[in-house]
């Protein structure tokens, strides 16, 4: 320790105190920033789903509804990514970007149609909404919760309308194959399905769900192109899985809030 005259020591002490005070303040600030950074890494809790109970429903009609489109979704990054690299050399021509987007979309739409055509021949006779509705009905029947479940291809007639406690309308807007993995490129069956339950004659919706249903098994696209029986089986499987999913979600929501 250095010995200093009193005046020098008090001056040095004062500087030391100021420095320590500054360090403390900076340290507090840095700790606060670090805590906020960590807080920023976490996400907020997901909101709880809301539903109205419908455990009084014993007789149910499942009605298929809407149009269904088969598609093979590639999520291709090319040629758009290459266009972006080229356009980086021409920053003064911003009008080229929307044009590049259009060309990208056009090329990929044509690709998608081509891929869809290669598998559609083997499944022309499949009725996706009917398969989903039948699978949903089977799953609901197995629960033992319902006295009667029937599936309808069209809206019930006037005299038939009050037979059921509720109707579930089932839609399958799109279904087919979707790329789910990169390197290697793998695809899986998928079905987008929607269902909503309402009491007949009231228009009151008591449950609704949208489900992106994806097959757990993934294959190269060629497997579907080369073997039509395989493609057909995989697509039937995913539609049945979609029916089970809708049924599970409907049953899960049945006593919500009880």
């Amino acid at each position, binding site marked *: 320790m250095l010995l200093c005259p009193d005046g020098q020591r008090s001056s040095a002490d004062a500087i030391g105190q100021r420095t320590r005070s500054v360090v403390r303040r900076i340290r507090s600030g*840095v700790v606060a920033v670090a805590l906020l950074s960590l807080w920023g890494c976490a996400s907020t809790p997901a909101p709880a789903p809301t539903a109205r109970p419908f455990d009084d429903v014993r007789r149910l009609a499942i009605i298929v509804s809407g149009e269904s489109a088969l598609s093979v979704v590639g999520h291709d990054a090319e040629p758009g990514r290459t266009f972006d690299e080229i356009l980086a050399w021409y920053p003064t021509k911003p009008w080229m970007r929307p044009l590049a987007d259009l060309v990208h979309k056009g090329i990929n739409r044509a690709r998608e149609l081509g891929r869809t055509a290669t598998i559609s021949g083997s499944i022309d006779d499949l009725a996706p909404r009917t398969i989903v509705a039948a699978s949903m009905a089977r799953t609901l029947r197995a629960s033992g919760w319902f006295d009667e479940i029937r599936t309808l291809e069209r809206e019930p007639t006037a005299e038939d309308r009050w037979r059921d406690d509720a109707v579930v309308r089932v839609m399958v807007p799109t279904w087919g194959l979707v790329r789910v993995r990169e390197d290697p490129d793998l695809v899986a069956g998928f079905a987008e399905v929607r269902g909503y339950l309402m009491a007949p004659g009231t228009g009151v919706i008591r449950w609704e769900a949208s489900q992106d249903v994806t097959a757990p098994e993934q294959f190269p696209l060629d497997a579907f192109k080369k073997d039509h029986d395989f493609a057909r089986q995989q697509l039937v499987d995913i539609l049945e899985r979609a029916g089970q999913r809708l049924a*599970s979600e409907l049953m899960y*929501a049945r006593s919500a809030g009880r």
Partner: protein
Amino acid sequence: MRPRGLAPVSLVLALTLAGCAMTTALDVGYPEQGANRALLASAAPRRVQISDVVDHRMETARVGTKPKDGGDIVTSRPVVDIVREALGVEMSKNRHVLVSDRPDVVLTAAVEVFRLDAVQGYRSLQYVGEAIIALTVVDGSTGDTLLTRRYVGIRRREVDKPDESQWREVLDTALARAMHDLATDPDLVAAVGGSRAPSARPAT
């Protein structure tokens, strides 16, 4: 002169920020508020022990990689703890009593997949979250296996503007779907009730 006190703090800050950039921890879970009483409540209330929940994933160090920089995506708690908690929530919500001794039935689970994948499109990104849980129900008194079933939850989501909060939503939803299938499975209801049920629906 640089104050010496700042050096360790700066190091902590640098490591914190670097950690945030390289590894992201997601607070994935199955909150009790989101659980409903379902078909599983049809079985008479039973004493249920959740014994082993084991991790059978091929890659256990992370659940995914970040699309931009390849950094790890991990869960803030071990995946087996998340699944054990989710099973406990479902059992409790459906009126069964969680016990550690003298159980009527014992559940064991293996987490086979708990993963987040991303497929990069041109102006969009598609996430696929997957949770596969193999569940075994054993009679607590005889040790007989009453049911073995695999529950698969998959969530697929396409986004235009990628955001870290989407990763958690995708995994949360995948787990919730697996749990909802479990809670509405008539065969599981029979097994928890103590009987070996014929398969009413194929394993998903």
